[in-house]
């Protein structure tokens, strides 16, 4: 548009994305929205790997990956972007190497460290939409706070053993204090669970495709949100808040899937309510200790 180009996409792009562009809910407009959008995937593990593969495949223009870990053999059964020969490599590098082979058209950005109160604003601020693919409560509260402060939709998933959970938070991504915005992680879980009740995949175990299903579902939500033009906070006067749902998956359950309806923004939420005192400065200044809040020690290693 305005550049004098006859076709908005290259011939290679028409070929590559043709099968998805003819889906009525996508179309050429949806494909262009995907191309001009940027997505941040925090965690390049069991959730982040499959989510990234399909988000890259779909033609998102810029994809950032945040992870400070290196690939281990015990990751391979579920973290499908990594392979036996990338064991020992930084996860973000191993993942981006693979993503480039799937789709060289995107820009990939490696953030080879864990998300922390100090770096959250700078990293999250550079993207349109955020996926929480991490594995501990401290990160989840931090990422949610950053998304509220920076008005980003947050697609949050988690899994353990044969169960998985998915929620789209802060959607629509209206500023704190606007009751028509979607609830944040603190609205749903105002208090962190006691540390002794929290199991990681290393402790509780995880079935590879169970976390895989949740990661791929995050990719579906990402694409739908982008093609529907929902990443830009809309004119808030026109918004009717629609209920936020959580998808519960139990591989051994009958039925395996269930959707439940969550509450709207909490009127006294620490992060997103009219009275919220959370500020970007308090994040960056280190006055919030997420690890301590979640009862975890040592603080630095967890975030």
């Amino acid at each position, binding site marked *: 548009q305005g550049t004098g180009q006859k076709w908005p996409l290259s011939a290679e792009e028409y070929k590559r994305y043709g099968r998805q562009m003819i889906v009525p809910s996508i179309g050429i407009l949806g494909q262009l929205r995907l191309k001009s959008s940027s997505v941040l995937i925090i*965690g390049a*593990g*069991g*959730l*982040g790997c499959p989510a990234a593969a399909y988000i890259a495949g779909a033609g998102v223009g810029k994809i950032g990956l945040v992870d400070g870990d290196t690939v281990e053999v015990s990751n391979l059964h579920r973290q499908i972007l990594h392979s036996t020969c990338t064991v020992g490599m930084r996860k973000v590098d191993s993942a981006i190497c693979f993503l480039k082979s799937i789709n060289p058209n995107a820009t990939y950005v490696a953030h080879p460290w864990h998300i922390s109160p100090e770096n959250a604003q700078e990293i999250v601020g550079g993207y349109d939409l955020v996926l*929480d*693919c*991490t*594995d*501990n*409560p401290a990160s*989840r509260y931090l990422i949610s706070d950053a998304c509220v402060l920076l008005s980003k939709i947050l697609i949050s*998933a*988690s*899994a*353990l*053993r044969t*169960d*998985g*959970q998915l929620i789209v938070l802060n959607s629509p991504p209206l500023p704190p204090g606007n009751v028509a915005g979607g609830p944040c992680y603190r609205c*749903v*879980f*105002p*208090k*962190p*669970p*006691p540390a002794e*009740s*929290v*199991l*990681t*995949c290393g402790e*509780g175990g*995880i079935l590879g495709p169970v*976390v895989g299903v949740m990661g791929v579902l995050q990719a579906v939500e990402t694409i739908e949100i982008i093609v529907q033009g929902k990443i830009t906070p809309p004119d808030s006067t026109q918004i009717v808040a629609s209920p936020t749902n*959580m998808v*519960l998956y*139990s591989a051994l*359950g009958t039925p395996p899937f*269930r*959707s*439940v*309806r*969550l*509450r709207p923004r909490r009127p006294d939420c620490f992060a997103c309510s009219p009275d919220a005192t959370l500020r970007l400065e308090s994040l960056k200044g280190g006055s919030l200790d997420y690890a301590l809040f979640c009862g975890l020690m040592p603080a630095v290693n967890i975030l």
Partner: protein
Amino acid sequence: MAAEEIIPVVVEFTGGLEMLFADQRKHTLAVPAKDEEGKPVTVGWLVNYLCEKVMKDSRKEMFVLDGHVRPGILVLINDADWELEGEASYALQPKDNILFVSTLHGG
């Protein structure tokens, strides 16, 4: 009233909570319609009942902490967050489905 009135409810556990309840995800229960004081039974009453009568696991604090459902557990009444329904004070209706979900953090 001749016989004590009974309310049939279905209680479900997921996200690992089922492990505290004999590894059974779905429990079909018949609870009395009134509590000891003759008031209609509530979800709050049910939580106590589950903790004292149904749960065999000794780690009560994994389910109830300081008299409340512990942080990190969502309670759903007929698939809606109980905070939409009056929380613990919600009076149980016949055939209600009460779901307890432990939040997962793995990824």
